């Protein structure tokens, strides 16, 4: 079944959980982005993908959250944008085999756009287009824009993706983490309206401050744009330090309970973000099937 048919009419899709925190648990040094391991330790990235597929994920995200030139340049990888994105797709595709869809993950630039910052809208479009081209050429099932805060940046990412891959399915999720809005002040209903106008294939919320805030955001998105396939991929609750470990208070059971509620609200894709593990995805898969 092609991805769009499944998204609209098939069984609910279970997406994967966190990549970054899993790589860190496997020894990725602080300050090194996961994309560096796409090149240096592809077998570890592949292991994470496989663990999620084994746990029941039908949709896995490439390890390319920071795969734009803007972010790769911080790791000295500015001249390897195409290579990082292509390799990441190859790794994910091999791990997915024929058991899961592969989503080309696109995260924010980490910069403010004009007039708030120096990056122009047109430059942002070009940066997203460059990454999307690398992902699309390597053969992803969809492009998956996530953790967005600014609607200008959402527009730039959508425009960039469509410039190079007009026929690929495209989804967008935002992070609601500031008093029910994104940290740029975007309300869920406002985001839903803009995303509906942009005619992306699905949208929703990921990351976020708390499971409650994400649930509230999803409710408002649904009210503003009924019928659109919703995607919900929240953090495993809130991080807190216990002894020397960072623990997330969202257990697999809690996440599974929320996943059920998200599906009742119209979610067609549910998964996890920061702090979630294959155990969370397994519990979610069991709960929604």
């Amino acid at each position, binding site marked *: 079944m092609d991805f769009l048919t499944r998204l609209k009419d098939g069984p609910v899709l279970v997406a994967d959980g966190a990549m970054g925190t899993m790589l860190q648990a496997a020894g990725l040094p602080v300050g090194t982005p996961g994309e560096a391991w796409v090149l240096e330790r592809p077998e570890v990235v592949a292991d994470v993908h496989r663990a999620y597929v084994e746990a029941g994920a039908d949709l896995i995200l490439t390890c390319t959250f920071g795969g734009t030139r803007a972010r790769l340049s*911080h790791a000295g990888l500015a001249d390897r944008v195409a290579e990082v994105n292509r390799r990441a797709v190859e790794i994910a595709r091999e791990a997915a085999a024929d058991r899961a869809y592969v989503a080309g993950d696109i995260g924010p630039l*980490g910069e403010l756009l004009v007039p708030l910052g120096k990056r122009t809208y047109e430059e942002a479009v070009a940066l997203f287009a460059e990454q999307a081209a690398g992902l699309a050429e390597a053969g992803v099932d969809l492009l998956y824009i996530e953790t967005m805060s600014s609607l200008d940046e959402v527009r730039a990412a959508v425009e960039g993706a469509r410039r190079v891959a007009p026929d690929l399915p495209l989804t967008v999720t935002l992070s609601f983490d500031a008093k029910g809005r994104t940290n*740029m002040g975007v309300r869920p209903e406002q985001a839903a309206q803009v995303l509906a106008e942009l005619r992306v294939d699905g949208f929703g919320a990921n990351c976020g401050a708390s499971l409650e805030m994400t649930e509230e955001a999803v409710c408002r998105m649904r009210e503003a744009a009924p019928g659109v396939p919703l995607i919900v991929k929240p953090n495993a609750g809130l991080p807190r330090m216990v002894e020397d470990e960072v623990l997330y208070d969202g257990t697999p059971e809690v996440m599974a309970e929320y996943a059920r509620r998200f599906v009742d609200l119209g979610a067609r894709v549910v998964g996890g973000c920061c702090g979630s593990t294959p155990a969370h995805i397994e519990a979610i898969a069991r709960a929604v099937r």
Partner: protein
Amino acid sequence: MNDELLQPLSQAVIDGDPDRARELAARALSAGADPLGAVEQVLSPAMEEVGRLYEEGEYFIPELVMAGEAMKAAMSVLGPEMVAREQVRSAPGVVVIGTVEGDIHEIGKSLVATMLEAAGFVVHDLGVDVPAAAFVSRAREVDADVVGLSALLTTTMRNQQAVIEALEEAGMRGRVRVVIGGAPASPEWAERIGADGYAENAREAVTVVRRLVGVG
């Protein structure tokens, strides 16, 4: 002081309108306003109001950034005139601020720096991905009262602790206070790593830093 010009200047900062702030600052000067007075009695309180609006959920990052730009636009007019008149704003303290090593999140740290400057502090912003040794050497060089450490990742927040340890090793912990912030940080984390304060947002950062230097 000419309230007819200064009240709109305050409003231009609160509205985040740099062009208008620059123009009104220039007009206030031509009308005889005292530049230091305008900074202390207009710009500073306007930025405090902006911080309050943020805390209350009226304002978000875009409004804070633009208000900061408006303040800087006004300062670009008032600052040189203060220099010309040999006016020096008495600073409550010197702050060295940055995002810790391994972390490239810039926005929150820069907003805190802007709010501290608005409150009169001398601020040395070291940028992002700053090694512990760089905090130590700059703090020594400028005789900092406070070091501000931002971390936005659960993994990099440990480097806030590393900076505190480096300050201890350098024998500077006795006179340099440390304040931490960033999404994963908390008052409990601050206490655990021996920081002197935690601030949830840019406005609170000003309150905490003021308290740490004994003017709050």
